[in-house]
């Protein structure tokens, strides 16, 4: 089936191409102080940023890989073989016409400029290490909304940037947040002024083009009091034979009464290690919602979280993971309740196909002294084949008497009888499978913005077509 309403256009087949690009800036292979200094030099970092990076490098080097609980497959990443910075230049433009031709045709092929015209309030497009394009609609800019790359953000808006940068996710949070802190480049910086409700989504598109490359974008979003924002990100990379690393850090801040929704649909090729740290800080009566759809990659480790710092704040993670043959989706959610009357909701659905493996890891923490906190956790797993695998580690600690928690988990399998029934109605085995999978995620997808649910359904169809028959 064809649809023209694709929101992020991250169909992997469409994304599986790469053009040869001349890079003016290349930090070479491997990671040491020289590389970090090179990045700081070409980006003309302020001193505090350079110091921040160098300290982070030490933290990264001192931390072991978390293989005591996570997958041993992490050992397959050779940090000395990766290229940490590749760019044509450091400034992004506000007009597609000024984007270099060899880069522009990539985004045109992915349909980004067209989507921007259709339904987005703003777009940032990152190609390997740097944003090549970032622009918001005039009306949105006039409301005082800032939407730029992280490099521009830290230079032009230091008073906001420095105040929040690294505060939600400290450098030493985990080995990969430390790595990102040392070599970060690209990503978005967004500030929404008090009371401003941004009607249409802002979108970032992350594209990896180079082989043996690591993309380390850094995103910081601040929604000031009473403001509202939806941010969407899409990611693709061509299929290379060697490991590619995507290692992002995303920090969200919702000040009093703000509503912030962060949507990810990623469809990485099966050579990508996707190790991302995402967390939000929710102030009083604010709401942070992560919608996270993980398709593709060799290994994804990602547990979006919300620290519920203010009274009556609300955190939500809705996630869908699809682990195809040879892939491991290790995903989940963290909800740290730190104030009274805070509520959190986690709904996770995973699908394992062939030898694919989906792991849910949750962390819900409600300390004893809090009152009237609520958590709801639901994890449902669907296994397509007898070789498919799923594991659930919910880890819910709720103390105190006035707090409540509800936890449900289920594992189901698409039955042969069901597939036969659907085939008898004329659907091929692959169509029957993909419709079954769509049925499995349907109640969750219904809560997503329209453009996203259409795109997601299409991606699931493509994924099932490739794996059945």
């Amino acid at each position, binding site marked *: *089936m*064809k649809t023209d309403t694709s929101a992020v256009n991250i169909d992997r087949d469409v994304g599986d191409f790469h053009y040869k690009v001349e890079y003016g800036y290349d930090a070479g292979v491997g990671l040491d102080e020289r590389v970090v200094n090179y990045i700081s030099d070409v980006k003309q970092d302020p001193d505090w940023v350079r110091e921040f990076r160098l300290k982070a490098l030490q933290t990264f080097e001192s931390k072991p890989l978390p293989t005591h609980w996570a997958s041993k497959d992490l050992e397959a990443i050779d940090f000395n073989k990766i290229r940490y910075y590749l760019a044509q230049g450091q400034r992004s433009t506000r007009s597609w016409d000024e984007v270099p031709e060899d880069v522009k045709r990539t985004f045109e092929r992915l349909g980004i400029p067209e989507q921007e015209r259709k339904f987005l309030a703003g777009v940032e497009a990152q190609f390997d290490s740097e944003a090549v394009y970032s622009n918001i609609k005039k009306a949105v800019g006039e409301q005082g909304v800032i939407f730029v790359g992280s490099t521009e953000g830290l230079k032009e808006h230091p008073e906001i940037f420095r105040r929040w940068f690294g505060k939600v996710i400290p450098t030493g949070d985990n080995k990969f947040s430390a790595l990102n802190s040392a070599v970060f480049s690209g990503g978005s910086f967004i500030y929404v002024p008090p009371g401003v409700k941004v009607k249409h989504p802002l979108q970032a598109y992350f594209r990896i083009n180079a082989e043996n490359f690591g993309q380390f974008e850094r995103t910081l979003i601040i929604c000031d009091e009473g403001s509202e924002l939806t941010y969407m990100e899409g990611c693709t990379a061509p299929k290379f034979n060697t490991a590619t690393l995507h290692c992002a850090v995303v920090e969200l801040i919702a000040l009093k009464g703000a509503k912030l929704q962060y949507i990810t649909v990623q469809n990485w090729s099966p050579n990508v290690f996707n190790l991302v740290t995402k967390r939000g800080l929710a102030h009083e009566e604010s709401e942070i919602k992560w919608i996270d759809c993980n398709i593709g990659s060799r290994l994804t480790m990602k547990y979006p979280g919300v620290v519920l710092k203010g009274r009556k704040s609300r955190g939500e993670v809705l996630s869908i993971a699809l682990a195809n043959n040879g892939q491991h989706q290790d995903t989940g959610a963290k909800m740290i309740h730190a104030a009274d009357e805070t509520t959190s909701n986690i709904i996770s659905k995973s699908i394992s196909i062939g030898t694919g493996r989906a792991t849910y890891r949750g962390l819900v923490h409600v300390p004893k002294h809090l009152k009237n906190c609520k958590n709801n956790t639901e994890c449902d797993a669907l296994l397509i084949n007898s070789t498919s695998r799923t594991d659930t580690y919910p880890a819910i600690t709720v103390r105190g008497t006035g707090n409540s928690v509800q936890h449900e988990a289920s594992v*189901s399998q698409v*039955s*042969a*009888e*069901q597939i*036969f*029934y*659907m*085939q*008898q*109605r*004329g*659907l*091929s*085995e692959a*169509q*029957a499978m993909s*419709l*079954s999978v*769509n*049925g*499995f*995620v*349907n*109640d969750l997808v219904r809560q997503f913005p329209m453009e996203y649910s259409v795109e997601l359904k299409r991606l699931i169809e493509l994924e099932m077509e490739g794996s059945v028959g």
Partner: protein
Amino acid sequence: MQQLEIKNLRVAIGENEIIRDLSLSVGLGELHAVMGPNGSGKSTLAKVIAGHPDYKVTSGEVFMDGENLFELEPDERARKGLFLAFQYPSEVPGVTIANFLRAAMQARLPEGEELEATDYYAKLYEKMDLLEIDRSFTSRAVNEGFSGGEKKRCEILQMAMLDPRYAVLDETDSGLDIDALKVVANGVNSLRGPNLGVLLITHYQRLLNYIVPDFVHVMVQGRIVRSGGKELALELEEKGYDLIRDHAEEPVAA
């Protein structure tokens, strides 16, 4: 050639022979009833025609308008016009009836052609009215939490939407109260015509008061033991299967 033709069919599950040299032809435009006691192999016959993977065909063939069905996948058979109303329809969790039928109809269109949504819904609502099905029904997931009667109506709704050439209806009357039975019978009758052949499998004579067959076959232990006109059903009701079963050793060709 315009017929669903079952020729000398033998079917086994493991060591057990369930269908034993069964032959039967349903011409386009005809309605044949197959009656038989529980366990005689009626559902097995239905599922083998549709291509269920659990059953092993040890010999014989089934032709649909001259085409050997055993050379086609179940979904190909369906798209070529074969429909099976299941005795025990599967649930399809999370997939609404509207979306399910839409996908099924889309699958019948040539590559690149899109189902016209307004036409689709117009047809869907027309057929739902015919079967006295509430509009809200289409937003429920297929067979999920349905009562027995709702499942059967849903099967006939699907048949009405998919316009098959040959339909096998497996115990579509079971679990229906008399009112529901009349509605379903009415639905089936409205679909009858020169372009539809029906193989109606039933355990009870009751349904045949409302759907009058052209031919009746009695199936016992995997064989057709008697064939006749609609009066055979009445005779069967009077005498019961036991009397007919006495003839089981001398199968009567259809």
